């Protein structure tokens, strides 16, 4: 997904149907349109960037100053960022988030890629029905099934940990299966068929032929899973609230502001710190990310 392919459709003749207007009025109309669009873009851009700027400025204020109406920190309290690490076990929270996100993603790939492949590339009886069931499972609000699942985990004595959130991915994730299947469908069947004829079993076809071609889609699905796990609040609320040692960053941030009577400066500093890893990953994985989102979204 590069920016080189951005094209502008030719301007339309508004009033005179079927007649192409003179170049001059066309040009001036184009210029006006360009100016108008860019004014809107700049205005919106400022509005969109403003919250982040304000959060950053607030993160450098002292607690007393955050309660006043002033916008510019006086003085600049850079040590808020250091204080965050000593006030709460932020590194432990990051560790928990990383554990949760990484394991969930790996487990999801192991279980969902084969299933998605089977649904996309193998004709078997009941594949349509199974796919429908998966769509329903994907669309279902998690709160509907939360209670019996919670009871089940409590009987296994795993509440108070992140495992109830990580382990189920070993048995597939409906949304990921859906995305992967859609992506596998875009790979022409000829490659798979050729591989089969060459004598490969299904596993061989999957491993040697299809997977290498599916890398962008798999990467995109993995990134989705990673971010959903990283940002998950409801799951940790349900399963880890009573055990601060297991808190991931998303839950820690929400409870941080309560326990310490909201030092807003610290809270905003923590907000910045929590966002930075995500932004960094995005910048490094940008191409894959955007490509994957658009490919699965557009074809979906």
């Amino acid at each position, binding site marked *: 997904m590069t920016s080189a392919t951005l094209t502008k459709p030719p301007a339309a003749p508004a009033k005179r149907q079927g007649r192409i207007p003179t170049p001059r009025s066309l040009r001036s109309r184009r210029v006006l349109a360009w100016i108008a669009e860019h004014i809107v873009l700049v205005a919106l851009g400022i509005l969109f960037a403003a919250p982040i700027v304000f959060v950053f400025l607030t993160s450098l204020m002292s607690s007393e100053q955050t*309660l006043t109406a002033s916008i510019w920190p006086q003085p600049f309290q850079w040590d808020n960022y250091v204080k965050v690490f000593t006030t709460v076990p932020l590194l432990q929270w990051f560790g928990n988030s990383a554990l949760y996100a990484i394991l969930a993603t790996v487990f999801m790939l192991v279980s969902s890629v084969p299933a998605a492949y089977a649904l996309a590339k193998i004709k078997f009886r*009941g594949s349509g029905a199974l796919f429908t069931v998966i769509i329903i499972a994907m669309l279902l609000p998690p709160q509907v099934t939360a209670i019996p699942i919670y009871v089940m985990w409590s009987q296994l*004595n795993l509440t108070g940990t992140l495992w109830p959130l990580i382990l189920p991915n070993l048995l597939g994730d409906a949304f990921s299966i859906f995305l992967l299947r859609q992506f596998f469908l875009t790979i022409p069947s000829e490659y798979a068929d050729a591989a089969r004829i060459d004598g490969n079993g299904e596993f061989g076809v999957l491993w040697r032929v299809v997977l290498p071609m599916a890398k962008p889609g798999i990467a995109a699905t993995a990134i989705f899973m990673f971010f959903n796990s990283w940002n998950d609040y409801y799951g940790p609320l349900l399963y880890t609230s*009573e055990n601060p040692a297991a808190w991931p960053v998303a839950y820690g941030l929400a409870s941080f502001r309560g326990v310490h*009577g909201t030092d807003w400066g610290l809270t905003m500093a923590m907000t910045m710190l929590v966002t930075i890893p995500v932004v960094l990953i995005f910048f490094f994985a940008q191409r894959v990310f955007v490509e994957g989102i658009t490919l699965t979204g557009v074809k979906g």
Partner: protein
Amino acid sequence: MKHRQRHIIATVAVAAAAALTLAGCSGGGSSASFEANTPKELSGTVSFWHFFSDREAKVIQSVVDDFEKKNPKIKVEVHSGQDDEKLQKAIATGSKVDVGLSYSTDIVGNFCSNGAFRSLNKVIERDGVDMSQFSDTVKSYTEFKGTRCAMPMLADVYGLYYNKDLLSAAGFTAPPKTLSELETMADKLTTFNPDGSIKTLGFNPTMGWYENAAAHYGPAAGADWLKSDGTSAISSSTGWTELMEWQKAYVDKIGWDKLNTFTSGLGQEFSADNAFQTGQVAMNMDGEYRTAFIADQAKKLNYGTAPFPTADDHTELYGGGYMTGNIIGISKGSKNPELAWALLKYLTTDTDAVVKLANGLKNVPTTKDALNSPKLEVSDQYKTFLDVASSPNVATTPASPLGAGYQQSFQDFWNKYQSQGGDLQAGLKNVDKQINDALALTTGP
């Protein structure tokens, strides 16, 4: 076609069977029970869950350390920061909790009925614990329908805090004794910004803010919550109507929008920016623990305390107030009930322990010995609350299987009423209905 259908039916059947078997089981692992005779030797590990954090958690820890010194063979595993939701979750899902300390009495009705906290009647008798050392009020909120499943561990008493400097600057020498006096004095103490918004407030009547809760105001007019059969008495107890009408008129006088804007900008209750501690609010309803916070966070504040003002036609109630407490019990799934009981007894009846806790947390001690102990640090401001606790007009919220649900229903209504108004009596009757319906769902046929 048939093949697929058979598969589907088989899967569903297996799942259904599994579902019903699993669903029929309850949470909680195996547990042990109390012994017939008081055990002589006690050793092992016992887990203690409580809700305190930061400075207050340190106080708890020091008393726990004392217990461990007295019982060298017992190790206590402390989990702090556990509110009622987390505590109940932990109790219900296994044997993680031996001793649980809750910040309010709300769960007593619930935990005593369903056994989440064990009944202590037998071991109290077995070990000869003298229950007369507790006042009737604290005894009443730690048992439900004859089952005593918790012991009182320090109490919270509510009264009026007032900023002496601000009051004398406005020409007042004594705190208000009735709600009308409170309002008049507060009007004089309120200051405004050039643009008309509120700068400092004499008294903040906003319901739901800080400690402004219906339960805390009830004793000011002798208002009742529940009838003796456990159903709601909200609309039949005239005290509530009095209080709500007074509060609404006061809110309207200040102006709801102005008041709400001002309130939204105030600091968090337990931080150093607490509005009373910063002087933004001159008089405030709060509990005795506030004295500890002020000593820690606002040492220069020149303040006084007094019993909370009563409604104008209930001056005979003056000197009382709302009392609640921390309660402590032994969980259903505990594997070490005897160790738990030893810790519990220490925390609630050992005079030195109770005094140390009271001094550190600035909560009101619940045993008579502790109240009279010379080691108890009593400042002038703190003494008010001790007096309120022993006043005949002190009141509490009754235990109910609904927990705090009935208070929440009423509070929701009051919060809406203060900004939206409406038909008060119809609203109160509706609250009655909600509470009674919820009660029927929880305990009825």
